[in-house]
């Protein structure tokens, strides 16, 4: 915030500094004072329709909105006087007069602002004896989104998101006064690549996602922050999963992926492809080492990998460059790529290191990029020059190691199996089951990016390190460990010996 003019104001008796032009709400947040709010969202201009953020400002006759009052030098703000607390209660009482007590069946329960604020600022007994207004409980507004008009508190965050962020403006407020409701124009559904954010920004459970609806409760979810591996933008995401109870023992399921916060990359938004990435973590996963397309219950990956090192060692040194081929991919982390480079390029002296990546898609002009891999810059920085493998040169090799199953996106299944048919030793390291499994001699299960910790370099050259968001299934490890074992087995390790 250097260069920005700071103004001094008094917040609850404390003198604090805030950059000029910020709202009282933001200034309070910076000072560690939380002012409750529904309609305010840092990404949009303040609208001030929920009236929840009322605060007392000296010399002003009435309570003022913290979200739309800009800080001034010498402003004296009080956020917890009796009149402010009473105003919060009153706002909550008005909202709850029409809000159904749906919490047991509402997906938002546990992370709902209305629930949270009632607990913190409300706690009044209900005084309304009148029946609550009946409205539509299940309106499909497009892309798996369901709108519950009874739960809606008309904060218009969704309307503003679609107008200001995506620019598509599919939703609007229709009718006036007590009949006001959110709806689509002439039934034209919400259809953009950022629709999932509507569920995230809805402060109550009015907009829910059919993909998550009724699957579990919010308080069971373990949140693991990581970097999205779908494209080269590298958005911050939070993988929300349950391991064990209330699922079965040792069962693991990723229920949803939500947007994380990273002001320098994605702000607070992520695209729907990133959200759908939860299927990559759970579905079609390899969990066992497969030998000749048969899953081996007893065979550990360490034992199977000893076989791989033996085959590599069997190739005499001078012939290695021609007889060993390696296919990597740009979903590997920088750490893995560095290790791969040490092993395959520097120690074994291989010339045939190629890359098979998902095919580029169309960029959408906002977050989603054309490159559908997270670490293309990291590949370059690790000293590789990624080229697509040539099937003829692959067929001439004796030992082939393929990481990832994206060869299929560039060559037909028959062409690959024909090329691999004559190779005596072919090993596949893949997280997901697929047609390539049949062509490989041994298939090793590997972790998906969410189960790894490492570093990705995004399209703008930003290096982002991330931790493990979910535990991999038992017996499944990241490529980093496989490379480490491979280095040990080949006698390249100069550091401390590890498990293998």
């Amino acid at each position, binding site marked *: 915030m250097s260069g920005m003019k700071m103004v001094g104001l008094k917040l609850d008796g404390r003198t604090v500094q805030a950059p000029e032009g910020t709202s009282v709400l933001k200034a309070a947040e910076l000072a560690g004072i939380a002012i409750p709010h529904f309609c305010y969202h840092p990404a949009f201009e303040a609208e001030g329709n929920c009236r929840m953020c009322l605060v007392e400002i000296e010399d002003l006759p009435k309570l003022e909105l913290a979200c739309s009052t800009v800080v001034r030098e010498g402003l004296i703000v009080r956020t917890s006087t009796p009149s402010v607390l009473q105003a919060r209660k009153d706002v909550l009482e008005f909202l709850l007069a029409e809000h159904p007590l749906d919490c*047991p069946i509402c997906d938002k329960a546990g992370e709902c602002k209305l629930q949270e604020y009632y607990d913190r600022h409300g706690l009044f007994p209900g005084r309304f004896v009148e029946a609550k207004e009946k409205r539509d409980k*299940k309106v499909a507004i497009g892309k798996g989104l369901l709108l519950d008009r009874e739960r809606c508190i008309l904060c218009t965050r969704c309307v503003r998101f679609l107008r200001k962020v995506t620019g598509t403006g599919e939703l609007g407020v229709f009718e006036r006064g007590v009949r006001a409701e959110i709806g689509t124009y002439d039934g034209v559904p919400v259809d953009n690549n950022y629709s999932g954010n509507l569920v995230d920004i809805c402060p109550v459970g009015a907009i829910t996602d059919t993909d998550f609806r009724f699957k579990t409760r919010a308080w069971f979810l373990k949140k693991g922050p990581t970097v999205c591996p779908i494209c080269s933008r590298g958005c911050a995401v939070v993988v929300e999963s349950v391991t064990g109870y*209330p699922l079965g023992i040792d069962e693991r399921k990723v229920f949803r992926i939500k947007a994380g916060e990273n002001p320098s990359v994605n702000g607070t938004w992520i695209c729907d492809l990133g959200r759908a990435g939860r299927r990559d973590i759970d579905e079609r996963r390899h969990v066992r080492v497969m030998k000749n397309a048969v899953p081996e219950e007893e065979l550990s990956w360490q034992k199977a990998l000893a076989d791989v090192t033996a085959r590599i060692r069997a190739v005499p040194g001078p012939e290695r460059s021609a007889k060993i081929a390696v296919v990597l991919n740009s979903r590997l982390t920088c750490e893995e790529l560095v290790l791969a480079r040490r092993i395959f390029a520097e120690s074994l002296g291989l010339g045939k290191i190629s890359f098979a990546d998902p095919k580029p898609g169309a960029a959408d002009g906002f977050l989603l990029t054309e490159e559908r891999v997270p670490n293309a810059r990291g590949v370059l920085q690790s000293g590789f020059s990624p080229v697509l493998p040539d099937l003829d040169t692959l067929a001439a090799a004796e030992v082939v190691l393929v990481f990832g199953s994206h060869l299929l996106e560039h060559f037909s299944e028959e062409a690959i199996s024909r090329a691999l048919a004559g190779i005596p030793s072919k090993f596949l390291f893949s997280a997901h089951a697929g047609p390539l499994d049949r062509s490989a001699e041994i298939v090793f299960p590997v972790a998906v990016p969410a189960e790894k910790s490492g570093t990705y370099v995004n399209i703008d050259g930003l290096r982002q390190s991330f931790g493990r968001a979910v535990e991999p299934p038992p017996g499944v490890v990241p490529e980093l460990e496989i490379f480490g074992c491979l280095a040990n087995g080949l006698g390249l390790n100069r550091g401390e010996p590890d498990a293998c």
Partner: protein
Amino acid sequence: MKIGRVLKELLRGAGITARHFFVNMVFHTLKLFGVRTKRRGAVTIQYPEERKELSPRHRSLHRVLSREDGKPRCVACMLCVTVCPSECLSVEAAEDDDPEVQKYPARFVVDLSRCCFCGFCVEACPVDAIRMDTGEIRLASYARSGLDLPLEKR
């Protein structure tokens, strides 16, 4: 020598039994004549032929209650699952076509091999859908699978 010690212990045991018999008889006799005593004679119930009546606030096998139209009352909010200290409940929610119901349990299984009959699930239920008042207390089974009770089918 050894036999003598065994006999001595046998007689001591018989003495204890006899003592209990006579002490209990005294208290039962006193009760018969209407004399109130602090201690009461022990009663043996010939279970399973004879059954003691369960207290009205006892906790026995769970049941899931139905609405008037036969649908389960449970809305699959999983508060029972959340509160369960022995982690024995497993509820899977499904979407009901009726927008007033919305959510119902497609699967509601209690693992009796883990249940400690604390009754927290009954306390936590916001719609009074689960109760532990069936009076069913003989829940033994020859196989563990027999202890996984799907309650949504009852």
